[in-house]
């Protein structure tokens, strides 16, 4: 798919996400806007997944380790056909499959349950190792938050992936510079990330995480490196696409009021016009 089309999809995903957060009265909207372009590129350009056979043994795997952005994954899975689009309106409602963190037992297309930070990467290492043991060619992708990289479990997995030479594993760090309560820089500044991953034996690439061309190239199989796991450090903006949420820590977990909702939707619709055919 062309980058132009991917941008149009991502814009639609943002609007649906915003709408569902507004309707549900909850959601981690900042981190969802931040990760939407990455998810769109993976699901609509890179990954081999089939909604008719969600457990196809040869499918590519994607783990959203920053599980609080579940809604961003739900809107993408709905667009792909894994779940009905209408179901998005049940987000957080009593007995919905779509709770605030993705559940692989209930929702087709979800690979493993996340929500507690620092779980996705170790599981992804296991997935990639299984593909190697099986002699299969499918790839494993995992998206983590940058604040999430403060969890020690990630660094244990980073060492294991290098030791196992998992060149079929791609870690994408959604590097928006914000965590729950403050900037990373004010909390536990783990930047710069690239030299650390390099030192741990990974191939590292830094990109603009909202530039479709750069994302698609960085996660493509052509840019992997034999014998080394790959880390893509995606420079992103929390709240991307909505001016008053952008790079604003207050919007980690917050619901727009009616006026804010209208304003945000207007901005996203204006952006959508740029992608109209």
């Amino acid at each position: 798919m062309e980058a132009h089309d991917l941008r149009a999809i991502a814009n639609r995903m943002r609007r649906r996400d915003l709408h569902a957060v507004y309707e549900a009265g909850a959601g981690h909207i900042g981190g969802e806007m931040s990760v939407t372009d990455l998810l769109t590129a993976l699901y609509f350009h890179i990954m081999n997944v089939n909604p008719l056979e969600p457990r196809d043994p040869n499918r590519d795997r994607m783990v959203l380790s920053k599980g609080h952005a579940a809604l961003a994954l739900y809107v993408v899975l709905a667009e792909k056909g894994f779940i009905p689009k209408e179901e998005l309106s049940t987000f957080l409602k009593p007995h919905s499959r779509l709770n605030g963190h993705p559940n692989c037992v209930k929702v087709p297309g979800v690979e493993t349950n996340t929500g507690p930070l620092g779980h996705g990467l170790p599981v992804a290492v296991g997935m990639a190792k299984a593909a190697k043991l099986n002699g299969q060619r499918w790839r494993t992708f995992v998206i983590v938050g940058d604040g999430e990289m403060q969890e020690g479990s990630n660094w244990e997995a980073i060492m294991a992936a290098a030791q196992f030479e998992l060149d079929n594993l791609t870690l994408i760090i959604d590097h928006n510079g914000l965590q729950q309560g403050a900037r990373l820089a004010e909390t536990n500044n783990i930047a710069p990330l690239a030299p650390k991953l390099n030192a741990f034996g990974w191939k590292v690439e830094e990109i603009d995480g909202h530039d479709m061309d750069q994302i698609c190239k960085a996660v493509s199989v052509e840019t992997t490196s034999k014998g080394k796991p790959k880390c893509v450090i995606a420079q992103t903006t929390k709240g991307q696409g909505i001016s008053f949420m952008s790079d604003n820590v207050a919007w980690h977990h917050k619901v727009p009021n009616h006026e804010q909702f209208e304003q945000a939707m207007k901005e996203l619709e204006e952006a959508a016009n740029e992608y109209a055919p």
Partner: protein
Amino acid sequence: MNMPLDPADLHDCRDAFTSTLEALAAANSDIVAVCNDSVGSSKLGGFREKFPSRLINVGIAEQNMVGVGAGLANGGKLPFVCAASPFLTGRALEQIKADVAYSQANVKLVGISSGMAYGELGPTHHSIEDFAWIRALPGVPVIAPADRIETAAAVRWAADHDGPCFLRLSRVGVPDILPHDHVFELGKSNVLMEGGDITLIANGVLTHRALAAATLLEDRGLSARVLNMACVRPIDAEAIVQAASDTAAILTCEEHTIFGGLGSAVAEVVVDECPVPMKRLGVPGVFAHTASANRLLDDFGMSPEGIANSALELIDRKG
């Protein structure tokens, strides 16, 4: 839950926790707060403003957080380690066991938004195993206050107590229950209502529901004793034995799995010392469906009506 509760009468116990902690910290410069990017959710903003150097935010790293807490205690500090309860207890359980309990480090573990307070965020964020996990460790009192008064009293007690403890707090609003001059005593429950037909034992956000259930039973001409049992360990065995002998039936209610929590702790005493008909209400060994915290309690049979119905069944069983 169709209880006539005015939101203005409901209080978030986190506020009582932090205001008490701030008052204690003003008088005792050794008190420090340790957290995991949870300044907001632990309501530590005021503490940070007043004592910036004594707010130790390790980032999103709970195992490190508990280890750092133990080290601070070793260095003469009085750390209150605060985090969402599932991540504090689940993620750092071995640090709690080895660094805090086994080492007898003077660390106050404060589990915030415990139980199913995080409702729709789902089972990863529910902390309905923490009574069982921490209760299994020697030397760590497990305390779930029922309202803001008991919360404040327990925080003051914890600061005075030489040794670790686990305070299990919610964010779900609860009414005032205990008298304003309430003094917390470790391992001591409180009789909130007298009665002879059955005893309802509860703690945390279940206490006010148990009281409402007792009122419903009263309407049916039955009298229930209501025991508020904040301490799951040490358990108030004396009050349990007394309840068994006076009322011959015990119903426990908790925002926790029925495997290993308050009900189990009570049952251990009942089985050993005073067998009487008993039932444990709680989360029945499942990962909860999507719903708000209060709705989940209702769905798991712990609305006042649900509790009263279980009580009636139990009273029937007495014959």
